[in-house]
Structure formats: C-alpha cells, structure tokens
C-alpha cells in the first residue's frame, strides 16, 4: 500500500495546495466586497424597497444573469485581455483572479439579494419611523438582521470558488484541480488524483463546517 503513493511529489502537492488557497482567498475577498455591494443595490432597487428603481434593477439583473450563464472555462478565455489589463498578466495565479471574481461576484450578489429579502419589512419600517437615514438602515438594520444568511452565502460562494480554481489550469493558474487533471488524468497517475481530490474534499468539508458553526453562533432566532 505504501508503494502506491511512493511516486507522489509532495512538494508539488504542497505548492498546488498553496496556489488553490491563494486563488480562493484573494478572489473571495474581492468577491465578497463586489458581490455585497451589487447584492445591496439589487435589493434596494427591487420592487417596494427604499430605492425602488425598475430600470437600474433590470439592467443589473441582466448583467448578473449574463455573467452567471457563461460557463467558467469560457469566461476565463474571454477575460484574458481584461486580466492582462487589470493584473498586468493573464496567466498564473494573478491571471486567474479576475475571472474567478467576475464569475463568483454575481453569484454571491444573488445570494446577498435573497438573504436581504428575508429581513422582516416591519423592522425596516420601524427604523425608517425612528428617523434613521437610509445608509444607517442598511448598515444597522438590514445587513445586521441578514447576517446569518449572508454568512451562509459566503460559505457557499467559497466552496464554489474552490471548484472554479480547478479550471484555472487552462491559464496555468495551478492549484490542486490543475494537478489532478495534469498528473492524475492526463498521465494516469491515480495516486495523485486520489490525494488531490481527497485534499479538495477535506478543504470543502472544513469550510462548510466552519461556516455552519459561525451561523449557529450568530443565530438568535
């Protein structure tokens, strides 16, 4: 059994794990910021809300839907020049960040919109009645009340990002998924395939458990 794994180059595995974590971490940060803003605008401009605006909502909604309907592999290729422009390179870990963010932010924005919609309208009305400004209502009431839903959304988005990073091998982004394809699949190194997939499964499992634990901690219902 020990001989089965003897050909694995652990330094490669460690490097790939680092790459995956790097891509995930950096793109997650940007995704949360952009997706949160986008989700808040989507929510506020939707019907019956504070900044109700049919046209802004429809336009944003359309952009989000388009970005979400393009398969990620294709998005990477389409965004090559954009990545080059923003990051200075279109390859490697930095080159993978823009497509990851542009794919995940609209996804997260929808999750944000949905969880803000769960906030009791009565509480928002009460806040307006006490004379809080719109910004204060968003910050002190809506985001606060939606925090467990938002956190669950972050967990889901993080895990989606992990699976997206697997495809960044196309542009040499590296990472565990890339390793699994190049060694495990293309060179028939079953051992590498098993180890990388196992690592990915563990990673996702840990993320989900951490997310759930935080949600439980913050839940007051």
């Amino acid at each position: 059994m020990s001989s089965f794994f003897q050909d694995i180059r652990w330094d490669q595995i460690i490097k790939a794990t680092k790459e995956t974590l790097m891509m995930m971490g950096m793109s997650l940060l940007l995704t949360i910021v952009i997706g949160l803003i986008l989700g808040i605008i989507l929510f506020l401009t939707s019907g019956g809300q504070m900044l109700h605006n049919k046209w802004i909502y429809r336009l944003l909604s359309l952009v989000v839907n388009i970005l979400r309907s393009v398969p990620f592999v294709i998005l990477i290729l389409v965004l090559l020049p954009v990545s080059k422009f923003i990051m200075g390179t279109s390859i490697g870990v930095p080159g993978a960040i823009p497509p990851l963010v542009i794919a995940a932010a609209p996804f997260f924005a929808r999750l944000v919109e949905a969880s803000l919609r769960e906030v009791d309208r009565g509480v928002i009305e009460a806040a307006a009645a006490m004379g809080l400004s719109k910004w204060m209502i968003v910050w002190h009431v809506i985001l606060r009340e939606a925090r467990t839903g938002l956190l669950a959304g972050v967990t889901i988005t993080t895990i989606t990002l992990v699976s997206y990073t697997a495809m960044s091998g196309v542009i040499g982004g590296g990472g565990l998924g890339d390793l699994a394809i190049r060694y495990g699949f293309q060179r028939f190194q079953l051992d590498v395939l098993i180890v990388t997939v196992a690592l990915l499964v563990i990673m996702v499992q840990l993320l989900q458990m951490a997310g759930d634990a935080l949600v439980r901690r913050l839940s007051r219902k």
Partner: protein
Amino acid sequence: MICFSVACRGVLLLIKLVDVHKDYVSGSAVVHALSEVHLTIKRGEIFGVIGHSGAGKSTLLRCVNLLERPSSGRVIVGDVDLMMLGEKELQQRRQKIGMIFQHFNLLTTATVRDNIALPLKTSTLSKVQVRERVTELLELVGLSAHEHKYPSQLSGGQKQRVGIARALANHPDVLLCDEATSALDPQTTEAILALLKDINAKLGITILLITHEMHVIRAICDRVAVMDSGRIIEQGDVLNVFLNPQHDTTKDFVSQVADVLDTDRLALHPQGRIIRLTYRGNMAYEPVLFDTVRSTTASFVILQGTVSRMKDTPYGQLIVELRGERAETDRIIAELRWHGLDVSIVQ
C-alpha cells in the same frame, strides 16, 4: 411658566391633518385608502382611531410620520408641515415621533439594550450617555432584569415594552401606536395600556393609537375618531361618542363593550313617560333620581341601564319610565336637568 408667542403657537394643537387623501393605483383600479380626512390632536391627549380592518386607520397613522405619503393634503406636526420637508429634515422630525407596532418589529439579532439604543444612533450622545439613557428607559418600562436577553427569549408583553422604550428613546412629543395590543392576550393588553396611560400622564407625551377594539379606546382614550372605508365618520370625546353613537359602525364598536340602550324594543304599552337619563362624572354615584322622584307623588321604573367607567370618568345611562301626573313628571324632568343630567324624552 412664561410663554413667548412664537413658542406658544400650536401649544394646544400638536397634530393636524388637513384634507388628507391617499389613493393607491393597482392596475387600472384606483383604491381610495383615505378620503377627506381632517383630524386635530391636542397636545397631551390620548386620541384613538377605531375602525374595522381595511378602514384605512393604518394608512392614516402612517401618514402622520409620512411612512405613507398622502396623495394630497397637509400633515402638520408641531408647527411644521411634514409634506414640505426634505429627506434629511423629515428624518430629524421623525426622531421626535415615536412609533410602536402590532408585531413589535424589534431587531432579532440585538439584545434588549441594543434594541432600545438603536434610535440613539442618530443622536450626538456619547457612549456613556447612551448607556445611561437606555438604563433609564429600561427602568421606565420595567425591563431592567432582561437587558441582555434577545427578543426571542421574551414574552409578547415584554417585547412591546422594548418597543415602547425604543420609541421613547429620543424624547418624542408624540407616540404613534399601530394596533399595539392586538397581538397580546387580555391581561398583557391591560398592562401595556396601563403603561401607555402612565407614560402619557408622567411624560406628557401625546398618544395617537389605532385599534379595532373598543375596550382599548374605553380604557385610555380621551377622544376618538371612527373610520369606515377611508373616511372619518364620527369623532369627539370618547364619552359622547360612546353614549350617543350616530353611525351603525360606531354602534357596532360600542356594543363590543357595553349594551347599547335600545329604545326600539321597550314595553309596548307604557303607563307613563319614557325618558333617557345620562349622567357623567361623580354624579353617577349620587341618588339624584331617587331624591327627585321622592319629593313628588310620582314613581319610576328602570327599564334598561348601565353604569360604568370610561378611562377615569364614571358614567351612567338609564332608560326610565316615570309614572304620575303630567305636571309632576314635567317637574321631575326639569329638576333632573337642573342637577346637570342629560334628559331626553323617548315617549
């Protein structure tokens, strides 16, 4: 206290709604939620608006702090027409108009203390001052022991107390109550009504409440308006409206808490004259009728009657048949009127 004319203007009147209309357009149909609403509320009074669901009372209440903007009309609170204010000014004015809700509308993620502190985010108070103010409010509503609990750990009555404390945080001069006791059981309702009455008396805060329950009006209101399909159909002192309901809707509501004296179904062949006596205040406890009739040779029969209490005012209403000489019954009626009783001759 010395009052200068500018400061004193509008001291008596606090809220004035002038010809307020509110229409909703849904598809091609226009719904008139409010039509020709005129309402004046005096400083320091408890004013109740009663109506069945869908009568427009909730819309009316929300027009007072412009949570709903009227389609036309004027909404004057203090000496400011809210309809003329910009967003920032309106927000500032709203800080002085507290509001409580049927379903409390508390932050589920915040403790009792933090819920009460929420409206103070708009103030310039320091952290220490906020803490002191919240402590005061906790004492006022009797929740000091529960300050670190979350709303899900509280009973309905306790949640409404948090709502009241929150509404009072910025020292408002008006408190709007949106069916504040409708989600509570009878005992808790009594306690919350007592608290509102207490706040009105102690802090001098004017209260405008809406309800569909007549006993709420009867327990704490000074004046009442009755609404039906977007219009105010009757308004006045609670006792007057209560004793002489004019519209069927009003009679319905009155019958929730007391027998409406019904002169249509009295004895068919009375031997004497039937009169309706109404007395209010402490006279309800005096033997005026007995003393007056005793001084004559006439006698009387009580056909229907009720003696009760409205807010703090005792009142009574009797339908009495006077039997005796015409001249004597005339004298009795005159004398009862002289004592201050309201006498109307039914037959």
